Every structure is written in C-alpha cells, then in structure tokens.
C-alpha cells in the first residue's frame, strides 16, 4: 500500500509538472541538441505502474487540440508524414461513427455527433496483436504497455489483421524521407515493419508523461489503472466513460469520457 501511495504522489507531482511544462525540453520547435540527453540518473527515476491507462476527456478535444497532440507525438517518435492510404499514424482524430462503429448511435446529442475523438493504440489488456505475432515482436510489458520490438518484426502484418481498432501502420516504404520534424534521440523505423503508439515507454522510463498527455493540457489523464488513488481512477469514478469496441474482447486501456 505504502509503495503504491508513494508512487501516486510521485506521479501526481510529475503530472503537475508535465502539464505546466508542456512543450518544454527537446520537443520544442528548435532542432534538438544533445544537452538534453537523458542520463542514467533520469532512467533511475522512471515512472512505474501495474497497468498504465489513459482517460480521454473527449469534450475538451477540438480538431486543433488533436492536431497539436498528433504533432507532438509524431515529432517525438519520428513518425513519417505520408499522405493517402499508406499513411502511418500513432495519434489521430476521427468522428464518433468511425471511433465507435459498434455503437450505431441514432438521434445522438449534436455535440457528440460532431465531435472529433483522439485515437491511438488502446494498449489492450488482452491484445490480439500480441497473440497473433509469430515472432513476439509485439509483446506486452508487465505494466500493460503493448510494445513493439522493431528489430524482430518480419512485416507479416498479421497484427494489423488482428487489431480491431486500426491502430497499426505498416512501413510500405522507407519512412525517413517523410519525417518532417526530426527527433535525433528517438530512432526512426525501416521499411517493412509495422509500428504503432508505444504509450511513450521511452519517456516513462525517464520519469516523463506521454507527450500527448503533456500537449493535451489536462484533456488526457494518464496513470495507473490498478491504483484506486490514481488520477485516472478518480476521473473514471467521477465521469461516465466508454471504451472502443469492448465486445472485441481485447479490453482497451484507453477510456473515453463523453
């Protein structure tokens, strides 16, 4: 109990800092410099949880805020900017119909009907992509994050067939020429591998919150779902939230507060 409480306090402190410090550090508009290289000490201060999750205050999202989060994410992770059907995206926006196609809402509240929802990998508790991957290139960490080991991916795209949320993108071509905002501290990908949101595992490891959470300025709440005292559990206790396609049985860790 004690340790989870300590973790909570630490997380809360970092959350507060994170919100205040949005778009500081090497994610600024200027090209990054090695001055910000994370040190071993930073890595000792990594954030830990039993089950990372995210709550989305969808009413706070405008297309502009989604674009801001998307830019922050795609810059941090060197996501290439490829137009058309072979697009690669970690964070994007979609209508209610597209986000929750199994809900088939009729006579919907106008504000919800016309709202854009931020979409990202759901970091499922029972991820289909992990189950189907023949090389364990996609795997689940003990803290619930569904990660990709790009070194191991053979590009069979079975995970894309398995994912009910369209969260995965395949590098049909070399992504490097399409990277607009470049972050030298994070690797790029090569063509022929699949990629997706990693819940900013590389930032959690140095005690920072996911970059979309920072950019969203409170519209995204990130925390430990298994900790009753966490911000995210508080948000879910106080607000009605749904998950995308719950009957696909994958149990998403991203909750949408309507």
């Amino acid at each position, binding site marked *: 109990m004690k340790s989870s409480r300590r973790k909570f306090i630490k997380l809360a402190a970092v959350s507060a800092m994170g919100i205040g410090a949005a778009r500081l550090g090497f994610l600024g508009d200027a090209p990054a410099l090695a001055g910000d290289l994370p040190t071993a000490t930073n890595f000792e201060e990594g954030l830990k949880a039993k089950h990372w999750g995210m709550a989305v205050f969808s009413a706070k999202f405008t297309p502009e805020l989604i674009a801001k989060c998307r830019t922050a994410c795609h810059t941090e992770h060197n996501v290439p900017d490829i137009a058309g059907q072979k*697009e690669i995206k970690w964070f994007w926006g*979609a209508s209610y119909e597209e986000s929750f196609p199994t809900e088939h809402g009729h006579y919907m509240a106008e504000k919800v009907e016309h709202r854009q929802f931020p979409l990202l990998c759901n970091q499922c508790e029972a991820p289909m992509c992990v189950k189907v991957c*023949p090389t364990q290139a996609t795997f689940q960490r003990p803290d619930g994050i569904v990660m990709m080991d790009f070194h191991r991916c053979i590009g069979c795209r079975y995970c894309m067939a398995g994912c009910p949320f369209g969260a995965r993108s*395949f590098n049909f071509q070399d992504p490097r020429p399409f990277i607009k905002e470049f972050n030298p501290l994070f690797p790029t990908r090569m063509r022929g591998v699949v990629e997706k949101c990693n819940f900013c595992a590389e930032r959690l490891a140095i005690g920072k919150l996911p970059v979309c959470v920072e950019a969203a300025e409170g519209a995204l709440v990130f925390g430990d779902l298994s900790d009753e005292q966490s911000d995210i559990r508080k948000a879910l206790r106080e607000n009605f939230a749904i998950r995308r396609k719950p009957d696909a049985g994958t149990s998403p860790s991203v909750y949408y507060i309507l």
Partner: protein
Amino acid sequence: MLEKALKGSPRYWGTLTALGMVMLLGLGFWLYQLTFGMQITGLNRDVSWGFYIAQFTYLVGVAASAVMLVLPYYFHHYKEFSKMIILGEFLAIAAVVMCLGFIVVDIGQPQRMLNVLLNPTPHSVLFWDMVVLNGYLFLNIIVGWTSLQYFKNDMTPPKWVKILAIVSVIWAFSIHTVTAFLYAGLPGRHYFLTAIMAARFLASAFCSGPAILLLLVLFLRRLTGFDPGQKAINRLAVIITYAMCVNIFFFLLEVFTSFYSNMPGHMAPLIYLFQGIDGHTMMVPFMWTAVVLGLGSLLFLIPTPIRQKTPALVTGLIMLVIASWIDKGLGLLIGGFTPNPFETVTVYSPTIPEIMISLMIFSLGGIVLTVLWKIAIEVRVEVEGGNLSMVPPPAAE
C-alpha cells in the same frame, strides 16, 4: 529418378522455358518490390493483406486436396486411383511450394523470416501454419517419391510409407484448418469471424483442388496419352461435385446467419462484395460472376450423363475453378478487410507488379509440377511400357 527430368521432348523443354521466362519477368518485379518496398502493391493501411495472401490461401486448399485421392486409396483401398494418386501428391508439392513463395513475397522483411523459428510462438496461428505447411511438404515428398521409387523397381512400398500416407491424410485436413484459423479467430473482422470458416475452406479446397487436378490430368491425357482410367476420372468428378455442393451450402449458411440475425457488422462485408458500399462497387461484378459460374458449374456436374461427357466435364470444372478462385482468391481477403475497423471503405485492388510477382510464383509452381509429373509419367511408361515418345495415341478418348 531425377534423370528422367533431364531428358525430354522439345515440347517439354519448351514448356519449361516458357514458364522460366515468365518467372524471370516476375523476378524483375520482385527485385523492384525488394528495392522499393511494398509501396508498389495496392495494399494499404486498412486492407493490409491482399492478393498474395489470398493466393496463398487458395493454394493451401489445392495442396490439401490431394487427400481426396489419398484417402479413398489408402483408407478404402479404392485402387482405381492408383494411377492418379502420384499426380495428386506431386500437385500438392507444387502447391505448397507456391504457398511458401507467396508468404515470402508478402512479408516486409523476408530476410528476417527465420525469426519465426528463432522465437517459436505457440499462441500465434501463423507459427503453426508454418509448422504444418512444411510438414505437409515433406510428407508428400517422402511418400510420393518413395512410392514412385518402389513402383519403378516393381516392389510393394514399405509399410512406413503407408503409415506416412495415412498421417498425410490427417495432416492435409490440418493444413487447411490451421490456415482457416489464421482468419477465424480475429475479433474485428466479421467476414472471417465464423465457426465454419475451416469447414468452408475444406469444402472449397476439396472441390477446387481436385478440379484443377482433373483438368490437368485431362489435358495430360490429350497431350501424352497417359490415361488414369475413366473410372477414376468419373469417381473424382463425383467427389468434386459433392464438395462443390457442400461449398455452396456452407456459403449460404453464412448468408443466412448474417442477414437473418440482421447484425450490421456481419452483413457489411457481404453487402460490400455483392452490392457495394458508398459507391464502391469494384467487387460486385466479380462476385456475381462467381455466383453464376458456381451455380452454373453444378448444371454440368450434377446430372451424371452430362458429367461423364468429357467436354461438359471440362466446362463445368473450369467454371467451378473460376468461381471458387473469385470466392477465395479475391473475395475472402477483400471482404474480410472491408469495411475497415472504422466501418468505412478503403478500396484495394492489386497492382500490375503484384500480379506479375504472383505470376512468378505460379510459374515456379508450374515448373515444379511439370518436372515432377514428367518423372511420374516416364516412370509409369518405363514400367508398363507404351508410349515413350509421349506423342498422343490416335484415339485418346
């Protein structure tokens, strides 16, 4: 016996050269794909599997269909199939070779393929598919080759060959079942998510595979005078007819469940395939062609007097093969991925390079098949005497 593949008529070498040329042409396109990546295909973020994997799936069926000869022969001692069985086994080898080829060209990092063996993952169906396909390839090579060797030496094959043949029967069911499981367990793909997927796969395999075999055998009879026996042909045609009826029946079960239940997700792929969604009607002409040809083939195949006439049989079989290919080699994958996870339509159609690379693999299969069948027939000619020149006899019919 391999030496029999090294001597042949100009026609034999001409066939191999022609197939080799097509293969080389396709190879050029494959190098193009290896250099520029999968962007040269029509695949996209939403339809992430397409023509390659569809051909793979269809050919797994063709490979499994050898069982329609092996099973009656070994389980029921139906000796009429003795002349054709080796052709079935060798067709299975060629089909599995093509299957593996389609996997190789489909994956984004083929040089890392052995990661599947380095990190064996029992919870992935793809891992098991690799196991069963390679196992089936070796079973057919061993059983086919050894039986032929013993036949050549005028000896009864050893008992272990029979045991392996029986294993291969069960194995054949497993390859297509596991291939169906690749699809049938995916929660977000309504067209795939059906308990009778494996049964549908087997039914369509057991009609289309033997149909291809029978067409090839009838062609062979015309070309070389090799006669598998009218009784065997008739019996195989009956098997094909039953399997096609079951195949159509299973498909109608899908239609019933989707539309009577009125569940939007289950209806959507069928509506897309047969009617189009949001003006995207690319698949509609193909699917209705499949319906017409599929039902039409039964008109030629069900009435015994018609079925037993070779031209009618050939017509029926060609219709059947086209219909089953549209269903499985086109509709299955596209329907499975459309509508996409956002319930919108992303159109996929294979590109020219994709089709050329597929032709490369089909030619490779054609070469394997030509060589293997050449050996099988030469051995039979050597043992039973007859038409060594491979010129058709005056009255083949």
